[in-house]
């Protein structure tokens, strides 16, 4: 999860990409339909999907985009571990 341009954290720093992820979590979507639902142009949607695809967050096949749950699972685990470490570091906070 670290090579430049392939970092899911970098991909998720952009609110529009998080919006795309939230829409796709509810179910796979046609790229054109996704652009419409996110109120983005198609080229911009394609660009964001490219970044997210390289970060392993989504998969695009035959103009249909879907999320990759295994990458969400990795992020869940990251924040779970981070919370545990933070709770140990500042137990009274």
């Amino acid at each position, binding site marked *: 999860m670290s090579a430049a341009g392939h*970092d899911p954290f970098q991909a998720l720093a952009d609110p529009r990409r998080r919006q795309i992820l939230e829409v796709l979590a509810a179910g796979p979507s046609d790229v054109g339909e996704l652009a419409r639902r996110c109120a983005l142009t198609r080229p911009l949607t394609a660009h964001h999907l490219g970044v997210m695809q390289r970060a392993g967050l989504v998969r695009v096949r035959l103009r249909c985009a879907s999320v990759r749950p295994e990458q969400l699972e990795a992020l*869940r685990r990251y924040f779970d571990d981070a919370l545990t470490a933070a709770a140990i*570091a500042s137990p009274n906070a």
Partner: protein
Amino acid sequence: MNEAVAAALAALGDPTRRDIFERILARPSRILFLADNVAVSRPAVSHHVRVLKEAGLVREDQGLLVATTDVLPAVRVYFDRLWFEASVGEGWMRERFAVSRRMHWRGAEIGLPAEGRAKLSRSA
């Protein structure tokens, strides 16, 4: 999505900043110590630390930077929810409710009391 979660994810989007956050997470540190151990200048480290503090990820306790539990639970819930929705969520819930609804109405047809119907749908 909640603004605190958005700020935390925006802060962690920078790889250097995430590296600094992870170092603080692993071990409460001072700015000088961090500056010696990461490949950026001390003013840059100070800047990254300020962003992490503003995002509620880190606090300073007598010069010592410590990771906080202020925003992390909400970020974890955000990914839990997305993961659940994307993996088991929709299909699983739809299936589960369809089955229990079917069993509920079947129970009604054969005149089972509501309690029996609930049992029937649980065993489905």
